[in-house]
């Protein structure tokens, strides 16, 4: 009976195949038109120049060369450094938290409350959330006040705000949910029996973590990394409001170029970041292969 139904299934699948091939091809054509062509246009724009709000369409390397002179290339590298640092620290904080939340025997009601709390920030405007930190971190703010009152410092503390530290901090607070939630999802669907079996077979806690939980939660980790790294590369509210203009990141630089309608500069900066991102994704994929093929990891989600 099972054999009959299986052959029927494969027949209907094979009937579907030409149609699905067309669909896949159509998808690729669309993807090419909607994603690749705009990227190529963007890239080619970086070889033009803007003078007095008018872009002249004569090929030139001036825009790329000017990136070096104005320190904009440094901005790109700084952005990349900060985004990667934030993503890494975020992962180190979020993974244990997600593990505890999913498998730490937390009561269902507590879980629900914590998950709800994690989603609240999505409903609040980011700049309103960040500006509050200024009144907490500033030298007239809460923390400085507490430090002075408790006699731990002799005067107001002014290094909590308007520097890279503050920007890192603001971004860590902002992107915590985007890192935690996907990892939590991935860990929570791991079958408890697998973890139990690992322990029964004599694996240490560390072995179970590294050889069972981490590989199985890899889709969530990857999603978390991408959902955090992407926005972190584009962050501009945290650097503007907590960096106090001393931490110039890519988006601020793009915004400034845009104020003079310098599309070629914007294009060059974006192309550069795309390149960096492409390198990162490849590196990430290679890293992920250490834990087995990515496809196999995703297939566990289907079971």
């Amino acid at each position, binding site marked *: 009976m099972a054999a009959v139904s299986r052959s029927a299934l494969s027949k209907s699948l094979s009937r579907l195949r030409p149609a699905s091939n067309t669909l896949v091809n159509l998808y690729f054509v669309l993807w090419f038109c909607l994603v690749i062509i705009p990227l190529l246009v963007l890239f080619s724009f970086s070889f033009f*120049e*803007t*003078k*007095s*709000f008018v872009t002249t369409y004569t090929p030139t390397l001036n825009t790329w060369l*000017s990136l070096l*002179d*104005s*320190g*904009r290339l*440094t*901005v790109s590298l700084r952005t990349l450094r900060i985004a990667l640092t934030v993503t890494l620290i975020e992962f180190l904080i979020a993974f244990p938290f997600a593990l505890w939340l999913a498998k730490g025997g937390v009561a269902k009601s507590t879980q629900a409350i914590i998950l709800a709390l994690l989603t609240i920030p999505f409903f609040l405007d980011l*700049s309103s959330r960040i*500006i509050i930190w*200024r*009144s907490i971190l*500033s*030298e*007239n703010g809460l923390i400085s006040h507490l430090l002075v009152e408790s006699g731990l410092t002799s005067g107001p503390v002014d290094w909590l*705000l*308007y520097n890279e530290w503050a920007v890192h901090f603001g971004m860590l607070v902002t992107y915590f949910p985007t890192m935690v939630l996907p990892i939590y999802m991935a860990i929570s669907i791991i079958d408890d029996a697998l973890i139990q079996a690992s322990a029964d077979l004599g694996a240490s806690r560390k072995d179970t973590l590294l050889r069972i939980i981490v590989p199985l939660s890899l889709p969530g980790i990857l999603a978390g990394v991408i959902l955090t790294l992407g926005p972190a590369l584009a962050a501009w*509210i945290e650097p*503007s*409001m907590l960096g*106090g*203009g*001393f931490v*110039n990141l890519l988006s*601020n*630089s793009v*915004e*400034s*170029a*845009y*104020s*003079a*309608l*310098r599309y070629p500069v914007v294009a060059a900066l974006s192309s550069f970041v795309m390149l960096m991102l492409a390198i990162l994704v490849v590196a990430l994929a290679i890293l992920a292969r250490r834990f087995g093929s990515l496809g196999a990891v995703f297939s566990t989600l289907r079971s």
Partner: protein
Amino acid sequence: MKDKFSTTTQLGLTRRGFLQSTAVAAGAAVLGTSFAETAQAAASNVVRGYGVTTSQLKDWSIMQKSTGVSMEFTGTNNSVGVFLRDVVASQLGDDADIFVFESGTEDVLGPQGIYLKIDEKHPELTLWDRTPDEWKRSETVVDKEGVQYGVPVIGNADSFGYYPDKMDAASDGNDELSWSLMFDDEKTRGRVAYDQTWTYSIGVAALYLMGLGKIGVKDVADMTGEEAAKVVNFLIERKKAGQFRTLHTAFEEQIQLLSSGTVDVINCWEPAVRETNKSLGSDKTRYAYTKEGYFKWGHGAYIAAQAEGRGNLDNIYKVLNYYLGGEYRAIQARDRGYAGPNMDLGVQYAKENGWSAEEIENLSNTEKKVARKFAKPYTSTTTPTNSDAIEEEWQRFLNA
């Protein structure tokens, strides 16, 4: 007048609202001639505006009562890049009748034929002849060749807010202070907030250096790359010396920095000082009169070229004329502290409409203040021809 995060620019109709209203109008046009005719008749007393919200009345129905014309205004932010893109690439003139923006766009869009030349003899523009040249021929409304593309709406001379007691300055705020308090004074070191937008900030630094005789700049509003480089070199040196506590970007930030006492000096909009005094007590902070000069700005109202064919020009000119009149002037000065052409008409309006003596006094003071400040340089533009070079130099300052 650059503001990226500000929620104050969110007043009025949203862009979506604007598009919906135009979609409704477009839908009406499709529905058939008779209906379209009705719609057109109904819409004939509507003028559609697009631009910065600073020029908005909180309640446009006041204008409708006075002129019979109603306004549908869609706000944009203060970024000239966004504005030029919207107007040129999105062909906003297909829907909007007038554009209101800070000075400079007429130099780019006027000669391109995107703005209509102002018909100074238009019968609805009754207040044009009595409007003083310092407003109507200002660089904010004529292009570089002197062609009249706009009607002046509001303006002010921006300087910095400060705590008089901490600067040893007269508490009435009448002292003429040097921009050295902003850039170069030992007692303000680390107690200054400087706007990080180049269009707003680089000019006043140049004025200060020119006052010292350290540099010569031909046109502060449109510095060359080399001139900007000199100013930026100075600013980088000051930044490294710890002169600036922070570089700010938004109106709300200005208020927060000043009112929390995080800084003692900040180059900001005048309303930020007003807001601060509202929370700290009147006259606690002051908006400076300066020795070297000001960031003088003005908003102009410009007619979209496409409006010429829509048969609505009479109403459009009624609105332009309204901008020059006493009612608009008095309300803008009271609500925002901004001046504009024909303040005498504003005072007259206030008297006729039973405003308090104090409010009338404030209107006169606004006029006096602006006259005193406008005597000094420089008139800003959002579209310097060397913007690319200046912006490039400014990046060096931000990255230093």
